[in-house]
């Protein structure tokens, strides 16, 4: 029941709090034994609410990738990819440590927690 939410925080803030603690956590529905992302109050599509947080393996694969062109004085080109996690869900992230236009679909990647603009962020490296 969620009639009174005071004194608690929602899944989005919980996710961010975990990141601040250095943990990349994703949700799993216990009855369905399925992971999902992004964080929600119930399993998308069928509404189960028996959820738990599980630390992600961090293993993933590039589902698609783009090289976002940006002037050097504004930080230069950067990569933006969609990553399919080993657990099944997909998320947006950057792949770093490689030229931003050299990230290819199907490449194996590994997550680490870094920061973007002062906020903790999940970033991936090519394995």
């Amino acid at each position, binding site marked *: 029941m969620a009639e009174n939410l005071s004194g608690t925080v929602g899944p989005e803030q919980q996710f961010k709090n975990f990141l601040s603690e250095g943990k990349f956590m994703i949700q799993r529905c216990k009855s369905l034994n399925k992971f999902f992302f*992004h964080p929600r109050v119930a399993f998308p599509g069928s509404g189960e609410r028996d959820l738990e947080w599980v630390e992600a393996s961090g293993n993933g694969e590039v589902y*698609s990738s783009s090289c976002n062109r940006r002037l050097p004085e504004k930080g230069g080109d950067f990569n933006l990819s*969609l990553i399919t996690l080993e657990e099944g869900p*997909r998320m*947006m992230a950057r792949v770093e440590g490689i030229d931003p236009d050299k990230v290819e679909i199907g490449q194996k990647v590994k997550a680490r927690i870094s920061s973007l603009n002062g906020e903790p962020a999940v970033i991936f490296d090519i394995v």
Partner: protein
Amino acid sequence: MDQNDINRLRGKTAVVGLAESGCGLASGWSAMEIMASAVHDALDDAGIKLKEVDGVFAATAFHSMAAMSLSEYLGVKPKFADGSQIGGSSFLSHILTAAMALDAGLINVAVVAYGSNQKSAGGFKTISEAMPYEAQYQPRMPVTAYALSAKRYMNEFGATREDLANVAVSARDWALLNPRAYTHQDGPLTVNDVLSARPIVDPLGKLDCCLVTDGGAAVVMTRSDRAKDTKNTPIYLLGAAMEHHHRMISEMPDLVKTSAIESGKRAFSMSGYKPNDMSTIQLYDAFTINTLLFLEDLGFCKKGEAKELVKNNNIGPAGNLKVNTNGGGLSCVHPGMYGLFVTLEALRQLRNASGDDVGQRLNGGWIDNAKLSVAHGNGGVLSSQVTNIWGVSDTL
């Protein structure tokens, strides 16, 4: 309710007036002024007085409550209004809602409208909130989303940037025949022009992306019994359907399959016609990848085969498929949300073929004997998909 109950809307309503306003550059004009000008012109075109309007439908990137703001500006007190905002396809869904409200007897005359001064006001305009779980990575939305789809499409089907470029080349060829098109005087494009244009978000370059212009548009709808007594050729709404599966590109179930598969299937089913029956095909081409995806998802070819379909200028003026005959969002007009312009072109082609004067085109710009048009709208990041099927009276 089964499909038969929904299909009772088939042919029950029609567009009897249309107009565009301020397309291209309209410095010194507000989005509302452009939108309201289009409404008045569309009513003039229909021969219907403003005081008869009792249904108002609008969405913009400038007004959080566009239907209310437009009604107030016009001095109309609508009995039903809808400002649903599902991105660039909003207007094609407004047309469905207007048809429902007209058929239910809630209203008698509906206007569906859009207006934007984004170009003269400084560039692409959005009132979208930042997407949680995406914004911190600073995607260049909406281009990044379409680039991610294009990259995946190329990988899955062996498509190339040349295949994407073919779409832009054909769109420009249509624009060269259309004096209303923003690039009408710009001359043809080559595949090489598209490939060598400034990269924006790889694999998409500047000429894979739509124009950024000002512009407004409006259509006037009535029930069909009244429509046949107006001064223009009524164009009947034969089918309409919508679906969406995601808001954020990271949540799109499959980057190469849009929910146009579902909206198209239901809209065509309602109309009683098939994709190949369409005289003209108007697709929301905010980016070159869109045209490939929608040709496939609406059933003009199998998944992965659109790259063959668009070769040799087959979707250009001399080709077999009459796609985006105004020049599209790529080469005609794109004031931020393009859905009503897809609709206008679908309707204009049918009215011209029926003998109405809806403007001049160079030879080949109007499709002879056009009787059926599909207008397909896209919104968000390949998110909301809405398909409308339009036909002249003998297709009823």
